[in-house]
């Protein structure tokens, strides 16, 4: 037996691999007569007895205390996210990390502070999406009534032309506009593999001083209660002429913004789009002008577009709430400066269906 054979056998035995007792005895016999191999054997023994690195107790405690019961209690969510995760299961995982997301350029600028995992309780305001759903339902209901009336009064079923009449040019253009926006402004959607839950039509958004508001309906507030808040630049439809409109607030409540309709006969009420993060209200912010309904809010330009599904190189994962929506923060900051939300959030999330990353800042 030569030195290499002896050393390989000793290694295999050290690692619990099956080694015949006869071969191992021969290896030991070789080491007894060979100073080099005897030293190698001594090194093996020393390596075996050396303590392995220990994870800091504070780290372990932090991870354990952050285990969210609901994250693992939703296997459907976990499965969906797993499909987009960079770490596939054991059967399809590539051995050398080639399944990783596209390489990010530049340094992250990560500071010395450790990112603390925070599983944030979800106490969001769901007002905006619920109203949108209600309006959509009402529209479907009215459409159904129209079709039924057509059947009843004309004695024939609704033809294709009838159906086309009920579809306004505005809504068609809104759909087209959103498609363009989806494909033109959100390559990250396909990059990140989170194309699910991306709608082709956005809700009716406007922006006021960088904050995004969503059309909630027509209201008739007492004009004496309204105070001029500033101006909104929007066509108030999907394709019309963009105009500067006066925006009003009722008292000091900045959560609802009133804008006169195009014919100036009524007020359109817009609710501030917000979510609750760590018991604080965060509002959706963008610096892109949403001049028409059907345009999606995007990240403020100061943020580079994330390249990977985990937000790199712009953001890092900060935590997630109990519905499993990931909360990201910019490198070098914490959630106090604002949080980012990736595309692909659940249907009842305020960012639902948006194909872009979005940025949310604490409401003042």
């Amino acid at each position: 037996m030569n030195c290499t054979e002896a050393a390989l056998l000793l290694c295999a035995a050290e690692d619990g691999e099956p080694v015949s007792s006869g071969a191992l005895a021969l290896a030991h016999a070789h080491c007894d007569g060979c100073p080099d191999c005897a030293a190698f054997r001594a090194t093996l023994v020393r390596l075996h007895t050396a303590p392995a690195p220990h994870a800091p107790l504070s780290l372990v405690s932090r991870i354990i205390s952050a285990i969210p019961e609901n994250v693992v209690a939703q296997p459907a969510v976990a499965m969906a996210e797993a499909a987009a995760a960079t770490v596939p299961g054991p059967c399809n995982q590539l051995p050398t990390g080639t399944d990783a997301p596209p390489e990010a350029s530049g340094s992250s600028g990560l500071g010395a502070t450790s990112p603390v995992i925070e599983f944030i309780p979800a106490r969001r305001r769901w007002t905006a999406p619920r109203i949108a759903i209600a309006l959509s339902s009402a529209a479907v209901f009215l459409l159904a009534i129209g079709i039924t009336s057509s059947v009843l009064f004309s004695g024939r079923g609704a033809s294709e032309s009838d159906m086309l009449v009920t579809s306004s040019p505005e809504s068609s253009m809104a759909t087209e506009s959103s498609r363009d926006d989806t494909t033109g402004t959100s390559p990250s959607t396909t990059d990140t593999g989170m194309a699910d839950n991306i709608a082709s039509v956005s809700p009716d958004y406007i922006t006021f001083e960088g904050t995004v508001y969503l059309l909630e309906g027509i209201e008739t507030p007492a004009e004496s209660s309204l105070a001029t808040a500033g101006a909104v630049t929007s066509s108030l439809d999907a394709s019309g002429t963009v105009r500067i409109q006066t925006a009003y607030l009722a008292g000091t409540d900045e959560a609802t913004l009133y804008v006169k309709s195009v014919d100036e006969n009524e007020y359109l009420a817009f609710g501030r789009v917000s979510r609750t993060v760590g018991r604080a209200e965060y509002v959706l912010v963008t610096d892109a002008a949403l001049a028409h309904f059907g345009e999606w809010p995007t990240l403020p330009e100061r943020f580079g577009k994330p390249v990977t599904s985990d937000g790199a190189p712009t953001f890092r994962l900060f935590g997630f709430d109990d519905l499993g929506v990931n909360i990201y923060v910019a490198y070098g900051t914490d959630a106090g400066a604002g949080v980012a939300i990736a595309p692909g959030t659940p249907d009842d999330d305020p960012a639902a269906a948006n194909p872009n990353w979005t940025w949310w800042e604490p409401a003042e």
Partner: protein
Amino acid sequence: MVIRAISESELVAAAASGDERAFATIVRQHADAVYGHALRFFGDRQAAEDATQEVFIKVFRTIATFDGRARFSTWLYRVTRNVCLDMNRAGRHVPQPVDPVTIEPLSEPDFANDVVFVQTFERAMSALPAEDRDALNAVTLFGLSYAEAALALGIPEGTVKSRVFRARRMLGTLLRGREGGVAGELH
């Protein structure tokens, strides 16, 4: 009180079904291995902590996809290794290179001293070629067999065996200033 030993598969199944205590047990059982791999990969404690957190976040969120065809440790090792590689690619953390020539060989007393030995040993681990270190970590930290390590790394079992051997031989050289602690080449 009846105490029943729970198998790894039972533990993983419980965690996948939402049992927080099972998850906590998994974290306690495997945190050292995950942290150890990340520490040796990056050579930096802060980066190792970040990676460890990220590994367990991924485990939380994807454990439902673990089908049990491989041992959980094998799966976890792959998650850990990929997280470190991904963090490096994304530029979030970069391994701190250790030049082998900067590692002072240990004297006999230091070789027997746990504190001094471990400090030098961990530096020596970071100085190993990545492929050799990965194989050694899979076997020594995660307790994988050569066959399991081969599966996880996507290389033949014989290659794992030779990489593990090569890693140990180089460690011996770095720690004692000569191969295996005694001058000379294996012959």
